[in-house]
């Protein structure tokens, strides 16, 4: 069996280089890989392209990465009301930002995961989101072409992994995590519990081990609203 379990948070992210494209799971304070983000921040990885629903809550979640100036570009749907470190850098032009409708963000990642090359949607037609995108009519409806979002890494949070990398999530902490696990070339998951292979019933697996490349144990971290 491949050994996927990293000995520490630092070891789990040790090979992530400057300039990496990284997806970060989490929504609404739940399901963020906060321990991995802290480790990445400590390592000082730079020039990251971050793909995430939002841009941090003050120093929490992705906030610390913006505070430290580690992110050069972000693809997100909703930076959020407390993404002050992001907004400061954005105002100075130190971070660029592509805003994507939330469901389209999911679909563009899933398109990458599924080996497809693009899709047509009515979402965003006639809005700022459509600028620069191919528009056409299909089935009598105006639609725009959306392209896949790929990433070198996904940093995600799950509740439980078996030693092979099969994952389960707790309640709404699931959110973006299973999609990003499928979409990135290399997925690193922090989990609160690692169980032996076979401990998760096959029908209960949410993210099959094929999508998970490294596992690290971490006590869940959470940042207040």
């Amino acid at each position: 069996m491949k050994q996927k379990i990293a000995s520490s948070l630092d070891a789990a992210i040790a090979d992530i280089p400057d300039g990496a494209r990284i997806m970060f799971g989490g929504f609404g304070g739940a399901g963020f890989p906060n321990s991995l983000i802290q480790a990445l921040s400590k390592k000082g990885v730079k020039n990251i392209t971050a793909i995430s629903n939002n841009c941090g809550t003050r120093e929490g979640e992705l906030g610390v990465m913006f505070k430290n100036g580690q992110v050069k570009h972000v693809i997100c749907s909703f930076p959020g009301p407390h993404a002050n470190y992001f907004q400061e850098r954005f105002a100075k032009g130190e971070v660029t930002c592509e805003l994507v409708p939330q469901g389209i963000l999911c679909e563009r990642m899933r398109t990458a995961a599924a080996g497809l090359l693009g899709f047509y949607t009515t979402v965003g037609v006639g809005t700022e989101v459509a600028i620069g995108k191919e528009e056409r009519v299909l089935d009598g409806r105006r639609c725009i072409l959306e392209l896949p979002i790929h990433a070198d890494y996904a940093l995600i949070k799950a509740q439980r992994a078996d030693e092979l990398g099969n994952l389960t999530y707790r309640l709404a902490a699931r959110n973006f995590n299973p999609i990003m696990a499928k979409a990135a070339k290399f997925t690193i998951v922090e989990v609160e519990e690692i169980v032996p292979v076979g401990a998760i019933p096959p029908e209960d697996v949410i993210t099959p081990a094929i999508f998970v490349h490294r596992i690290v144990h971490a006590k869940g971290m959470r940042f207040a609203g």
Partner: protein
Amino acid sequence: MTEKARLTREQIAQRAAQELYDGAYVNLGWGIPNLIADYLPRGLTVYFHSENGILGMGRRAKPGEEDFDLVDAMKVPVTLIPGASIFHQADAHLMTRGGHLDIAVLGGFQVSEKGDLANWKIPGSKGSGGIGGAMDIASGSKKLIVCMEHNTKEGAPKIVRSCNYPLTGLECVDTIVTDLAVIDVTPEGLVLRETAPGWTAEEVQARTEAQLIVRSAVPQMKLA
């Protein structure tokens, strides 16, 4: 001139709640729509959807009862009702775009006479802005209701001939519930269905840029 009393935000939510029906799958957006759950008519079971992968949200969690892995799209700890289900964000938006939700209620900055919606960005505002799930929700719900004040704080109409705020979606709004009126977007144009208590159709039209269609007598809202 002192204006007559308009509906409060809570009253707008209360009127909008009357648009829901038993067994409906419903998404509530930020702002006034988020107040609607508090005014659900008694005996109605509605399955509230959240973009982060919940169907069947119940009331907000009480102090001490909060589970921060179970939050709504506004990050508020919630509860689940029997029959709830959990899924990932892509499936949550498959529901919004795919026509699976019976009703979605969003806030609005402007609605045009064709039902275009602007609700995510104020022109000239600083910062990046943020879209969230609004564009997906606007694109696919069976019925889209917008709840908003009828006019800006400066008195400018928000129901306009054509939106000049950045758009959320084209021809997506079905019904507008404001502090002055209930208005349906129809192929013929905007139909004034109800006015706020004490307001006439003419008074509502005077505060609306778009032309309203007034069919016979327009009843006043009932907010029992």
